[in-house]
């Protein structure tokens, strides 16, 4: 049986650098095996250590469960520690992630917008210039709401093509196939007069 697919982790801010090199050691920098820090691990460190969020909050922002976030975070700490202690080069790459910036909502023109210039704070709505903007975070209360806004279902190209890990699509389909099969079986049972 194949393992359950990984849920894609949401990364709000991609790292500003591709990695880090040690200096001042005995060996020239960048020699030896590098440590590969995955994007999701970088994001976990950013949220938990840099932003100071707890694991529950961070897990909502990354769209994974709290235990998963804790596992990602533990692995990230392990890798960063190894790079630091052994003096290895750190490369940030890989991981099952998708990028999504933080969304904001404008109360004046009722639009939603994202914010690609992450360094600058959001002050005004890009559409109407109103200052009545508020962050539209994926915290537990608005999670369902955001799904509704973001729902790609109406766009034909996305129909039936959610990345694995999006809520229950494949399973629902399997269930449907199973139900159809059952119905078919029952039909054939009736044909042969065997009532179950």
């Amino acid at each position: 049986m194949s393992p359950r697919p990984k849920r894609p982790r949401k990364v709000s801010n991609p790292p500003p650098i591709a990695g880090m090199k040690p200096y001042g050691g005995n060996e020239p920098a960048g020699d030896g095996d590098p440590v590969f820090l995955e994007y999701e691990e970088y994001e976990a460190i950013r949220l938990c250590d840099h932003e100071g969020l707890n694991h529950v909050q961070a897990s909502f922002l990354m769209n994974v469960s709290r235990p998963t976030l804790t596992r990602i975070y533990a692995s990230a700490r392990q890798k960063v520690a190894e790079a630091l202690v052994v003096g290895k080069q750190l490369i940030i790459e890989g991981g099952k992630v998708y990028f999504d910036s933080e969304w904001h909502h404008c109360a004046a023109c009722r639009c939603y917008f994202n914010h690609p210039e992450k360094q600058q704070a959001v002050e005004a709505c890009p559409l109407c210039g109103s200052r009545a903007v508020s962050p539209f975070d994926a915290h537990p209360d608005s999670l369902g709401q955001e799904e509704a806004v973001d729902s790609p279902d109406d766009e034909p190209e996305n129909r039936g093509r959610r990345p694995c890990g999006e809520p229950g699509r494949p399973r629902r389909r399997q269930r449907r196939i199973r139900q159809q099969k059952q119905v078919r079986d029952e039909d054939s049972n009736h044909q042969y007069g065997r009532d179950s």
Partner: protein
Amino acid sequence: MKTAITSTGETPDSKLDQRFGRCAWFIIYDRETGATEAVANPGREALEGAGPAAVQLVASKGVRQIVSGEFGIKIKSLVDSLGIQMIILKESEKTVREVMDLLKNQ
């Protein structure tokens, strides 16, 4: 700054198109000069990959903002990585001209 607005028609008086990848036209509005340009969406009838193709098209025009009713999941990460701002406006009754006026009056 250039803004692409998804439109159901060629003129700015047409209504906003609620889809991005399969909208009929893009009206590209330059906020500094006030110029508009209508670009037909070649991926309108495409079976798949309409969204990424549309992103390529608007990105090649130097657009920094896109106004549309919604964006698919493939497009979001792509647009995000290009540093283009997405604005979701779920009002199908608004015309492109009204959106342009909003942008102008900031």
